[in-house]
Every structure is written in structure tokens, then in C-alpha cells.
């Protein structure tokens, strides 16, 4: 192994991207744009009070309870008949129709139903409004509930939870894509053939690629972290160096996987077609959107072999919980990422055959 040759390959990659402004934009501007959108969508408490219609022809009760219910800040309450309420629900003018079945003491909530996520939000809002209404009777329906959190807090938004995993996702996505396309260009333009006719060894070539792209991945991580912490005001407790270590080992896997994919593709269009195959399973199964422990049992083994699963867990532990590098969980995740990177790197070396035709 010759360090000079590895350094030459890494430098060549860095110099090449210096003039490739589109790729640089993809690396640094695209994550900032996407994060801005994510911040706008999930970064502030945007819960809208649902419009709730009380079916007056099916419900009668003490006037002060009804008034308090309709005036609750949890909902936008209004009165209507049952039939009119249903009409409003169908037209999208109301989110829920509510009445109380007195003999059975059952509260009925009818929602439009096409959005399962909205159902839960509306149900919770109506229950809060009912509690407000009943409070006018001078007694609370059960003990007061106070929820405290070990990590995070009331001022944490969904973005705080998403930011650590987005750092990992962007690094993996862009570095995988760029390394796959870059290496494919080596194959298609004949430079790989030229490299293989020099003393450069295949392992040195892969190491050079890893070093060159790690440089960009770490720069990207700095941009993303600065943007999320300083502009989006994401809460952040961890150690920056630990975050970079997790990033670096994740990128080793991403670059190597890119090199492997480039061996299977004949042109850049084909390489891009690997993006959904490699990335979409990781979006859904790595805990990025859905916690891994909420996945169906049969999908867990698949989640367990995805690198982003461990990067997400490590980065959330570091950024939200403030875990140190020495924490056993963080060390275990880094170890698994290193193992993944090594396996992929060995695969990448094997994929570069001397017979490059």
C-alpha cells in the first residue's frame, strides 16, 4: 500500500469537484433547501384546531357544558343539526361531527376518515374539548396527568427528532450517488483502464476514493449541522467530533456501495436507477420516519442489516441524548458501521477487475 498514490487519488477527486459546480450544489445546497422545507413543515407547532360540529338534535346537556365545549381552544366548535353536520363533513367544511348517546353515555365522533393521521389528532382535540366542557361542572374526570421526558422537552419539535437522521441520510444519499457516478465515469471514459496500467493497486484506488469523498461528506456535515443548529434552531447536545466519526464510518459504506453499484451499471442512467433500490428501504426501515421497534416483526431483520439504522440510532443518541463516544450503544453502532464499510470496501475492490473491458 502506497500512501502517496492513495493521496493522489483523493486529491484528484477533490480537485475534480472544485470545478463541478452542479455536483457541489447537489452536495451543499440541496440539503439546505430540503432542510429548510423540513424545518418549515415540522419545525414549529403547526397543529390546527379542527372544526367540530356538535349535532344539537342528538345531544342535549347543561348549557354551560355545551358552551364550554364549543368555546374550547382545542377545537373550532359550532352547532348544527346532525344532517347539516354530515353535509359539512362531506364538503370538507368541518373535520368532525360529534354527539353524545345519552342512554349509553357514549361520545360519538364522526370524521371524514380518508387521512388516518388526521383521525387521531381530531379525536385527541375533541377529548380535550370534552374535558374543558366537563370542567364547568367543577370536577375533573380523573387525575391530572403531567408528562415529563428524560430527553427533549415540550419545546422540542418533530424537526429536533428528525435533524440527526437527516444528517446521516443526506451524507449517505449524496455521497453514494456521487461516488457511483464518478466511478462509473472512470469505467466509461477509459481512465480506469489507464489507472490499471499504472502501479496503482485496486485497494489504493478504493482508499483514495474513500478519503476524497469523506472529505466532502465531512464538509457537508458541517454545513448541515451549522444550518440546523444556527438557522433552524434545532436542539443539539452532542459532541461534534463524535458526530463526525459516525458520519465518516457511514460514508465509508456509502462510497464503497457506490463503487459496487457502478460495476453493475453500464451508464449513468442505470446508476441512478439504483438509488430507489438502495435508499428507499433505508428511508422506511432505518428508523428515519418510523421507529424501528414499531416495524412489523418480519421487517426487523431487514432493518438490522441497513447501515442507516445504526447511523440514525447513534446520531440520535449523540445529538438528542448527549451520549459520548465511549457510550456502549454509540460504540456498538460505530462498530457495526465499520464492519459494513469494510465488507462493502472489500466488495468494491473485488468489483474492480483488471479486465476492465
Amino acid at each position, binding site marked *: 500500500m502506497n500512501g*502517496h498514490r492513495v493521496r493522489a487519488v483523493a486529491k484528484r477527486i477533490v*480537485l*475534480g*469537484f472544485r470545478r463541478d459546480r452542479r455536483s457541489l450544489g447537489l452536495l451543499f445546497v440541496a440539503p439546505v433547501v430540503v432542510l429548510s422545507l423540513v424545518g418549515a413543515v415540522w419545525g414549529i407547532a403547526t397543529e390546527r384546531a379542527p372544526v367540530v360540529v356538535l349535532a344539537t338534535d342528538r345531544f342535549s346537556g347543561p348549557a354551560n357544558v355545551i358552551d364550554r365545549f364549543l368555546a374550547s381552544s382545542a377545537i373550532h366548535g359550532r352547532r348544527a343539526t346532525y344532517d347539516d353536520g354530515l353535509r359539512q363533513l362531506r364538503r370538507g367544511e368541518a373535520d368532525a361531527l360529534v354527539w353524545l348517546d345519552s342512554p349509553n353515555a357514549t361520545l360519538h365522533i364522526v370524521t371524514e376518515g380518508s387521512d388516518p393521521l388526521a383521525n387521531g389528532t381530531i379525536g385527541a382535540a375533541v377529548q380535550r374539548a370534552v374535558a374543558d366542557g366537563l370542567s364547568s361542572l367543577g370536577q375533573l374526570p380523573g387525575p391530572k396527568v403531567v408528562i415529563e421526558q428524560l430527553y427533549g422537552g415540550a419545546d422540542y419539535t418533530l424537526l429536533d427528532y428528525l435533524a440527526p437522521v437527516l444528517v446521516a441520510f443526506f451524507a449517505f444519499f449524496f455521497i453514494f450517488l456521487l461516488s457511483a457516478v464518478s466511478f462509473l465515469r472512470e469505467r466509461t471514459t477509459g481512465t480506469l483502464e489507464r489507472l490499471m496500467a499504472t*502501479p496503482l493497486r485496486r485497494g489504493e484506488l478504493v482508499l483514495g476514493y474513500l478519503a476524497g469523498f469523506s472529505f466532502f461528506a465531512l464538509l457537508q456535515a458541517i454545513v448541515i449541522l451549522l444550518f440546523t443548529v444556527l438557522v433552524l434552531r434545532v436542539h443539539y447536545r452532542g459532541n461534534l467530533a463524535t458526530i463526525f466519526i459516525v458520519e465518516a464510518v457511514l460514508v465509508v459504506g456509502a462510497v464503497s456501495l457506490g463503487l459496487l453499484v457502478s460495476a453493475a451499471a453500464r451508464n449513468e442512467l442505470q446508476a441512478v436507477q439504483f438509488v430507489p433500490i438502495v435508499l428507499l428501504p433505508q428511508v422506511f426501515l432505518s428508523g428515519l420516519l418510523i421507529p424501528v421497534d414499531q416495524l412489523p416483526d418480519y421487517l426487523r431483520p431487514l432493518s438490522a442489516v441497513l447501515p442507516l439504522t445504526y447511523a440514525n440510532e447513534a446520531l440520535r443518541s449523540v445529538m438528542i441524548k448527549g451520549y459520548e463516544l465511549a457510550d456502549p450503544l454509540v460504540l456498538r453502532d460505530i462498530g457495526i458501521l465499520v464492519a459494513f464499510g469494510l465488507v462493502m470496501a472489500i466488495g468494491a475492490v473485488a468489483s474492480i477487475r483488471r*479486465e476492465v473491458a
Partner: protein
Amino acid sequence: MFPPDKLNVATQFAVDARGVRKRFGTIEALRGLDLAIRAGEIYGLLGPNGSGKTTFIRCVAGLLRSEAGTLTVLGGTPRAAVSAGRVGYMTQVAALYGDLSVDENLRFFAALQGVAHADERIAEALRTVDLLDRRRSVVNTLSSGMRTRVSLAATLLHRPSLLLLDEPTVGVDPLLRQEFWAYFRRLASSGTTLLVSSHVMDEASRCDRLGLIRAGAVLAEGTANELVARAGTPDLESAFLALAEAR
């Protein structure tokens, strides 16, 4: 002028191929190819497209493994010669990094070959291909002829003992082609061995010896005059056709 490396004394041939065979799926690209290239000569590999010229050059460059026969390059295996930095390979297309400048490309290839005093060597190579004034130009902005010249410069940086030039004058204007051949001659007279592939017959007369190749085998070997005399034809082109038909 680049001084030559010392050629391995174990062989008098820079390249010695005996019964070399190479197959790609059902296609037999080399069918027991025999040829020997003496140290310090310009050997022209002449043949039509698809005759196996590039396949043989890639075998010599250590990029392809022959399936049968023996192939000795500078006294050892092709890969050993390449790893020792004793072989320079100029591919048919100017395989360069378009986003890098001429200087950055040459610096990169110099680093891979472990070239000391890279600055001087790069200047020397660029002077040879008459591109010293384009040293800072980005390769993508150069004409195809200029890229071919940069590609040749990249092959010369480490002063290889054996130069493999796969159709080096394709896309090069006649004046520069003349200069290329004059330079090849100077390299050979200083001890460098050159294997040049071409399908242009008028270039063949510039080589010391020729190997006429067709369907993966050598039809005939010798100087241009010898081949013409053997075929009893007025020129090399008709000699090639006559020798091909005789087979």
C-alpha cells in the same frame, strides 16, 4: 529527450509472445499469437479493425490475462513490468480527467508512477507535445487533437522502457503526426521500445518492423520492404491483402 531505463538483461526481447490466446465469450480475439519485439525498436502492429491489436496491447499492459501461451514483458510478467513503472500505455481514446487542468492531470499520473521532480518532467513532456502554453487549460476546453497530445504526455512522464501506443495518431493533424513520429524515433534511438498499433498503412513504413495481424494471429513479420518483397506486390497495402488471402 528521455534517457531509457536499463532493460532487463535476462531477455533480448522487450515483448515475447508465444501462442497467446484470449477469448471473450464465444469470440476468440487472439488465436495463438506469436511475436517478439526487440529492445529499442519501433514495432508496428498492423491490421484491420477487430483483428486483435488492442486486445494484444491490453494483454501486454497487464489489463487482460491470456488464457494460453506465454507472454513475457521486459523479462517478467506483464503485471510485474507495469507495477515496476516500466510500461507506458496510451489508450486509443485520450483517457483524461476533463474537469482537471492539463497540469493537474499530468501531476496525478506522475504521482501514480512515483515520478520524482514532477515539475521538470511535466514541462519536458508538454514541450515534447507542444502544449507547454496550455498547461493551465482545463482538459474539457481542449480540442480532441490536443487531448491526444496530453494523453501522450501523460504516458511519457515516468520515462517507461516500453511504450504501448494504441492508434496514437488518430485525430492528430498531419503536421503534428509528423512530429509525433520524429519523437517516437528519438525515443527508440535512446533505447525505448515502442509497440504502435495502427490500421493506417502509410504509417507502417516508419516502423522498424511490422507484424501483420488478422483474426487474432500474426500473418507475417518483418520490415516493410521484406513484407512487400515476400508478397511480390508494389506496396504494403497490397502486400497485406496478398498475405491475408494466402492464409
